[in-house]
C-alpha cells in the first residue's frame, strides 16, 4: 500500500548525518503542542453528549452542526477541568476570552472554530520530567473539537485519490485543551518523557483519559535544529504522530532531515509535515501557497471567563497527589531515585499507594516495591499486610530473594495470603541469625587463607567463604546476609 505524496521531498538519512548528530555538533529544538479531550459529560458549547463510539451523527444539536441561529453556551465543567490541569502544570490561571479562528473545512461546521487567542485561561507553567529536567509551558487554552471525516474510494481510507468523503459530527464541539510547551526539549527521549508525564498528570487530576491511540490526546511537534548557543532556526510542524514511540522516531527523523538541509546550504522551509509511520519519514502533503489567514477576532457570542480566586483556590485545594510527588514519596521510603525504573513503572500503574500501605504496616518499602514491579497482580489480589510481612522476612534475611519470589507467586496463584505459612510449607525455614553466624565463624575457621586474603581487601576471596556457608546450610543461607556478616567481622 503505497501513498503518493505531492511534492515529495522526503529525506533519506545517511550514516554521515547520524554521526555528526550524535557527536553533538547540532542540537534539536523541540516544542510540543498537545490537544487533550476533556472528560466532561457534554460538549464545550452545547449539551449534546461527549461520548466516543456512538452511532454517527447522534450526538448533535444546532450548535454542534453550526446551524443558522445557533448560539454557544460555555460548559462550566470544562472550565473546571481546564483550571485543574492548568494548576497541575503550575500555570497561572487568568481571566480569559474566546476568539473565532476562521477557515473552511468540511468537519468544521461553522467554518470557524471557537478557541482562545489573545487571552488563554492558563499561562506560564512548567512540567518537570522524572529526571528533573524542566520543560516550560507557554499556555493552555480551551477550544472545540471538529467532526470526523472518512474518505471513500481511495487507498487505505486516505484523502488522496478518494471519490468522496463522509462527515460525522459526533466529535464536533467536544471540549479540548491545547497545551503548548516552550521549545525547551532537546532530545527525542525528553519529548517522549514529556508526553508520558503529561498523560500521567491529566489522568491523575481526572481531566482526560489522554489516550493517543484513541485520539483523546494528540501531539504535534515543532522541530528545528541549531548549533548550540546560536539563534533558533526555521521550524517545521510535524503532525499525524499517533503514539509515544512514533513521536520519538518522527522527531529524530525530522531533526536529521533539517541538519542535512542546513549542511547542504539549503533553506528549511517553514511548513507542516505529515509523519508517515509506514515509511518512517515526514512529508509535505502539498506545496504551501498562502498560509490560511485565520482572521482571529473576539467571539461576540460569548462573554469573559473570570474564575476568580475562590474558584481557583478551591480547585487547587482539591488537587490529588500528582505522579511526581507520588514518585518522590516512594523514593523517600525506598531510598531509590525518583526516576528509578521500578518507581516509574509502579507509579504509572497506580500501584504506589499499595506499596506505601505495606510500608506503613511495617514493611520494607524497597523490597515491596521490587515485588510489585515484577508481579503487578499482587496489588489486586494480596493484602498490603501480607506484602509487608513478606518484605520484612526478606529484608531481615529470614528468607532469600528467590525464596520470596516463590512465595509471591504462590500467594498470587493459590489465593492464600499468609507468607509465613507458605514459607513453612515450602520448607523455607527461617534461618536463625545466630545459627548463620556460627556457620560463618566455622567457614572462617576452616579457611584461614581465604579469610586473610579477604581481610587484606581481596574481594574474590569472599567467594570461597560464602560458598562454604551455602554448602553448610544446604542452600538456605541468604547470600547477602552472609556477605554482610563477613564484612562486619573484618578487623
Amino acid at each position, binding site marked *: 500500500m503505497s501513498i503518493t505524496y505531492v511534492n515529495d521531498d522526503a529525506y533519506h538519512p545517511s550514516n554521515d548525518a547520524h554521526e555528526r548528530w550524535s557527536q553533538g555538533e547540532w542540537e534539536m529544538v523541540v516544542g510540543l503542542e498537545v490537544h487533550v479531550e476533556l472528560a466532561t459529560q457534554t460538549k464545550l458549547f452545547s449539551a449534546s453528549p461527549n461520548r466516543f463510539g456512538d452511532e454517527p451523527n447522534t450526538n448533535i444539536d*444546532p450548535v454542534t452542526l453550526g*446551524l*443558522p*441561529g445557533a448560539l454557544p453556551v460555555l460548559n462550566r465543567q470544562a472550565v473546571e477541568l481546564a483550571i485543574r490541569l492548568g494548576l497541575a502544570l503550575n500555570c497561572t490561571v487568568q481571566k480569559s476570552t474566546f476568539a473565532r479562528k476562521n477557515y*473552511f473545512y468540511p468537519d468544521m*461546521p461553522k*467554518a470557524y472554530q471557537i478557541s482562545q487567542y489573545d487571552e488563554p485561561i492558563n499561562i506560564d507553567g512548567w512540567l518537570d520530567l522524572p529526571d528533573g529536567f524542566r520543560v516550560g509551558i507557554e499556555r493552555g487554552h480551551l477550544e472545540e473539537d471538529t467532526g470526523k471525516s472518512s474518505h471513500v474510494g481511495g487507498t487505505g481510507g486516505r484523502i488522496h485519490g478518494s471519490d468522496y468523503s463522509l462527515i460525522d459530527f459526533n466529535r464536533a464541539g467536544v471540549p479540548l485543551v491545547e497545551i503548548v510547551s516552550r521549545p525547551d526539549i532537546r532530545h527525542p527521549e525528553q519529548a517522549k518523557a514529556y508526553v508520558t508525564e503529561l498523560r500521567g498528570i491529566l489522568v491523575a487530576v481526572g481531566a482526560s483519559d489522554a489516550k493517543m491511540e484513541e485520539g483523546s490526546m494528540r501531539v504535534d511537534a515543532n522541530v528545528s535544529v541549531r548549533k548550540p548557543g546560536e539563534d533558533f532556526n526555521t521550524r517545521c510542524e510535524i503532525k499525524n504522530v499517533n503514539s509515544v514511540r512514533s513521536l520519538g522516531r518522527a522527531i529524530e527523523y525530522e531533526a536529521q532531515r533539517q541538519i542535512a538541509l542546513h549542511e547542504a546550504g539549503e533553506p528549511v522551509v517553514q511548513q507542516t509535515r505529515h509523519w508517515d509511520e509506514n515509511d518512517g519519514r515526514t512529508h509535505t502533503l502539498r506545496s504551501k501557497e498562502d498560509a490560511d489567514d485565520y482572521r482571529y*477576532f473576539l467571539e461576540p457570542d460569548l462573554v469573559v471567563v473570570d474564575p476568580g480566586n475562590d474558584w481557583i483556590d478551591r480547585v487547587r485545594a482539591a488537587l490529588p497527589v500528582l505522579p511526581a510527588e507520588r514518585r518522590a514519596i516512594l523514593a523517600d521510603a525506598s531510598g531509590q531515585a525518583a526516576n528509578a525504573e521500578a518507581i516509574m513503572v509502579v507509579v504509572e500503574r497506580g500501584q504506589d499507594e499499595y506499596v506505601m500501605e505495606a510500608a506503613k504496616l511495617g514493611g520494607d518499602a524497597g523490597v515491596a516495591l521490587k515485588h510489585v514491579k515484577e508481579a503487578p497482580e499482587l496489588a489486586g489480589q494480596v493484602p498490603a499486610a501480607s506484602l509487608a510481612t513478606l518484605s520484612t522476612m526478606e529484608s531481615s534475611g529470614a528468607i532469600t530473594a528467590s525464596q520470596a519470589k516463590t512465595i509471591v507467586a504462590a500467594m498470587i496463584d493459590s489465593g492464600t495470603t499468609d507468607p509465613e505459612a507458605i514459607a513453612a510449607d515450602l520448607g523455607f525455614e527461617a534461618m536463625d541469625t545466630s545459627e548463620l553466624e556460627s556457620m560463618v565463624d566455622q567457614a572462617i575457621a576452616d579457611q584461614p587463607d581465604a579469610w586473610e586474603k579477604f581481610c587484606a581487601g581481596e574481594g574474590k576471596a569472599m567467594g570461597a567463604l560464602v560458598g562454604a556457608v551455602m554448602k553448610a546450610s544446604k542452600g538456605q543461607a541468604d547470600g547477602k546476609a552472609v556477605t554482610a556478616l563477613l564484612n562486619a567481622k573484618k578487623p
Partner: protein
Amino acid sequence: MSAFDIASKVRNGETTAADVVDAHLARIAERDDEINAFNLVLNDAARVRAAEIDEIIAAGDDPGPLAGVPVALKDNLCTRGIPTTCSSKILADWAPPYDATVVTRLSDAGAIAIGKTNLDEFAMGSSTENSAFGTTRNPLDTTRVPGGSSGGSAAAVAAGFAPLSLGSDTGGSIRQPAALCGVVGVKPTYGAVSRLGLIAFGSSLDQIGPFAHDVSDAALALEAISGHDPSDSTSIQQGPLDLTAALDRGVDGLRIGRITDLPTGASPDVEERLEVAFDALRSAGAEIVDVVVPAFGYGLTAYYLIAPAEASSNLARFDGVRFGMRTTAPDTNSMYTATRTDGFGDEVKRRIMLGTYALSAGYYDAYYGRAQKVRRLISNDFKAAYAQVDVLLTPASPSVAFEVGAKASDPLSMYLCDTYTIPSNLTGDPGMSVPFGTGEHGLPVGVQILAPALKDDVMFQAGATLERHMQSERGVAS
C-alpha cells in the same frame, strides 16, 4: 383592531381566534400580491393554531396576553419545519429543526404566526430591494420602498396584514422601515431579547424587536419576548422588560436631549417634524437640554467595518455541506466557491469581502481594530450625554420613503439611511421610532427616541407621550 384589543376580545369570548386569523388572511390574500410583504403565508398552520387557541378558551383556560393575535415573523427567525430563507437563494428550501426563542415565547403567549416576511438578503440593506424573492413595496405608496432590512415586517403591519410583526435591527433595520411605513418599531437594549434562532448578521449588534401600530401594542409584544434566555450567553440577567406601566407616566420633569452636533443630512420635512416633537414634549412638561455627542457621526464608518466583519464570519457556515443550497463541483473547495457564488446576492458578497478585508492579516489593526476603538469613543460620548438627560431625540430616517431603484446603484448612499440609527446598535442602547406625522408627498416621518441601556421603559414613556400628541394633532385636524 390593535393587538391589545384582539387579545382582550379573544380572551373574553367576544371573538374567536379563528375569525381573527381568517380576517387577516383575507386581507393578505387581497393585497400581498401588490405589496410582497410575505415570503410565505402560513394559511394552514395559522388556522390550526387558531383552533387550538379557541379550544383553550373553551376549556376555560387563558392562552396568554397575546391570545389569538396574528404575528408576522421576519424570515431570518427560525421556525421549526417551516422554511426560513433570509430571502436568499442559499437557504431557499431550508427548514430549521428548531424554533427561535422569540417564536416559542410568542406562541406561549397565545400569538399566532401568520407568515414569514421578506427582508433584504441576510438583513443587509435599507430598502428590502436586496431580496432574492423580489422587492417589498411600501403600502402607503407602492412606487416606494418600505425601508429595510425588515421591510416585509414593517409593511405587513402598515398594510393591516397583522397587528404585530417581529423584525431584527443591526444598524437600524427595524427603526428605519418603521419610520418609512408609519408604524412603531423598537430595537430593545442589546441582550433584552434572546438571539437564539435569529440567523446572525452582526452578532454584537443584532437585536430582535416588534413592529406595531401603537406604542402600547409594541410594549405588549416586547414584554412577551424579552427576558433572560440561558441559551443566549449575551442575554440580560433579568426577567422580561416591564414596559406597560411606563406608558401613562408622561414626561413631566423628564430631561430630553437635543444633540446639537448631530450629523446633517436629514431632509427639511424630517427636521420640521423633529422640532414639533421637541415642542410637544416641552408642552407636556419635559425639559429640553442641549447635549453634544461628538463621535456620533463616526458611527457609520465604525459600523460598516464591524458589521461586515462579523457577518463575513457568520455567513461562512453557508458552505453547502450540511444544509441549504449546494452547487455540485469535483472537490469540496470548489463546491464551497460555486455554492456561495451562486447562492449569495451582490450586496451580501460585497459586505462579506469588505468584512474579510477588515479582519485580514495586516489590516485588522487599521480597520476592525480601529473601528472597535471608535465604538468605545461613541459609547463614552453617549454615556456623557446620558449623565445630563434621560432620553435623546433624533430623526429615525434622514428622509421619507424613497422610490424603488433610487439608491440601488450606489451602495454608499444606501448606507447613509442608517446614519441616526447605527450608533445605538454600536453602544447596545435601545431605540424606537414613533410615527410622527407626515413629510414630503404626505409620506410618514418617524421620530427616534434613544435611551440608555435597560431604560427601555423610559424610552416608551417618551414614545407614548409623542403618540398621544399625534392623536390629539389628528383630532384637531379632523
